[in-house]
């Protein structure tokens, strides 16, 4: 009853279960805070290469999010607006990385784009190698992030009243003008949500990256990979690096909360 207005009563089972659930989610994060090696956190982060991994994580996740957006929105458009034989199959295929274990995605990428892969062997002959490179880390991350952009944008396109675009045409707007000035601006909430979710997914990516791009410090070792490696040698450093990820994720989630969840 903090705010005036209608009286809302939470049923007891809901209150109890939600309290258990919140505790389940919050305790591990709080444990990180409690057990963090606060006195020597600077040295731990530096020694474990966490700062380098942090910067690489930012570069890889932001590039992957942008790439997911640039490729995912047109895919969503085609799925929502055109009909062609096998559309259901195509939709299943492009959403598949969302349900697939990321390590399987990594193996699949390796089979396709690895040095001796189906496409990769050609690329290698042209002098292009993707495995064990930052570009490879970006590709692996994009692979798992795209479905989130597609799902969000396709939902937005389907719920958009087509009469707005018809109106724009009747007012003299070309298809391109309508797309840029009407369709995309009206889809902004869904596009922003898709972008943020894709970025969040990219930031946490582990399995596909380590499988396809490897775990090379400064080139493919993103922060999650650094945490995993530090855990085997120095658990304190792993906690410190984990806290870095928690902090970054929380900052973005709080900053974008209105855009993702509505008000």
């Amino acid at each position: 009853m903090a705010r005036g207005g209608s009286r809302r009563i939470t049923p007891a089972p809901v209150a109890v279960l939600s309290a258990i659930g919140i505790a389940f989610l919050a305790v591990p994060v709080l444990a990180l805070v409690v057990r963090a090696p606060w006195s020597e956190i600077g040295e731990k982060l530096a020694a474990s290469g966490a700062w380098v991994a942090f910067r690489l994580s930012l570069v890889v996740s932001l590039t992957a999010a942008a790439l997911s957006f640039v490729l995912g929105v047109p895919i969503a458009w085609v799925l929502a607006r055109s009909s062609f034989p096998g559309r259901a199959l195509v939709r299943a295929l492009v959403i598949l990385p969302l349900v697939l274990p990321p390590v399987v995605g990594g193996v699949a990428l390796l089979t396709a784009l690895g040095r001796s892969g189906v496409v990769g062997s050609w690329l290698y002959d042209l002098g292009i190698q993707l495995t064990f490179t930052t570009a490879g880390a970006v590709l692996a991350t994009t692979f798992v992030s795209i479905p989130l952009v597609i799902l969000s944008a396709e939902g937005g396109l389907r719920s958009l009243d087509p009469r707005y675009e018809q109106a724009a045409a009747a007012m003299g707007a070309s298809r391109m003008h309508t797309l840029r000035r009407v369709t995309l601006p009206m889809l902004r909430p869904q596009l922003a949500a898709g972008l943020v979710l894709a970025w969040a997914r990219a930031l946490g990516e582990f399995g596909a990256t380590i499988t396809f791009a490897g775990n090379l410090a400064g080139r493919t070792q993103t922060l999650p990979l650094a945490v995993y490696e530090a855990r085997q040698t120095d658990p304190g450093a792993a906690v410190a690096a984990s806290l870095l990820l928690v902090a970054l994720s929380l900052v973005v989630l709080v900053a974008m909360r209105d855009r993702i969840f509505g008000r």
Partner: protein
Amino acid sequence: MNLEAELTLTRTAFTVEVALAAAEGSTLVLLGPNGSGKTTVLSCLAGILTPERGRVLLGGEALLDTAVGIDVPPQRRPIGVLFQDGLLFPHLSAVENAAFPLTARGIAKEEARARSRGLLERLGFPIARSTARPGALSGGEAQRVALARALVTEPQLLLLDEPTSALDVRSRNDLRPVIGRALSSFPGVRVLITHDPVEAMTLGDRLVVIEDGRISQAGTVEELRRAPRTSYVAELIGVNVFRGALVADGGTWRIETPDGSVFVADPGLAAGASAIGVLPPGEIELHLERPPEGSAQNVLAGTVEAIAIDGHRARVRVACHPPVVAEVTLASAERLALRPGDELWASFKAVGIDVEPA
């Protein structure tokens, strides 16, 4: 710059098959029940829908001719459209919405805004609100923006789809004269969809009634009123229309028609202005003898000219000054034993008459 159109297209519920013609500088009103195909016709004129067969000629030039495969896309037709529900872009401000057809045609933002701001002002839009988004505008303000957006390119064909239907009574009455002025100063062909008889009569030169995809009747207001061919037309247009000058006389108001006058409630207009009074036929009571003094200010003596039976209703045409049509239940008509030539009195209240500037 006349408009000629013939359209045939199949919708899920019925087939739309209409032929329309409108002269330059005239307003063609499309009337009809909801779902009768009016908006479909308008969409074909705008180029948003392509009919199976059809032709749309504007000033002799084909916008559509399915026989020879011409279908000019909407963005290249010289049209201005006010869509049902306004359909303003929610992410653009009022002035950006009004300027949209200009910026879409590549006119620089500043010039486009200046032009639409001037137009908005002429349409009575409060210019201080021009940066507000549609969600923050009142219904009347939003429709002024929608009207400006339809007019701003100075098109040759203006299409208005129920410009006032989403408004409450007061804003509708405010907007109607604005639309009237905009229409009469618009040089090209105007096509207006409405299901408001007052709007149809005050704004239209020619009325086309569409029912179930087909034209059930077309003509001037007078023609439709005199001989409604379907019960829908009878109910909608079969109203009494008193056209003439407003006279104020010691606190009472009258409309002086060429054939007698009727008392009306204070219309909020200047005396001497020409006005149209609209009275639904169901508002009129019929009496065999002069009714005792009551609240009805209008008591007219006359004779029965004709009786038309429509289901359980009877429409009685009374020759009085001015002549009126009354609608009574069939039972009442039988009880009064009305026959053509019978003398009787018609009475109706002044407040029952809806008065609009003509």
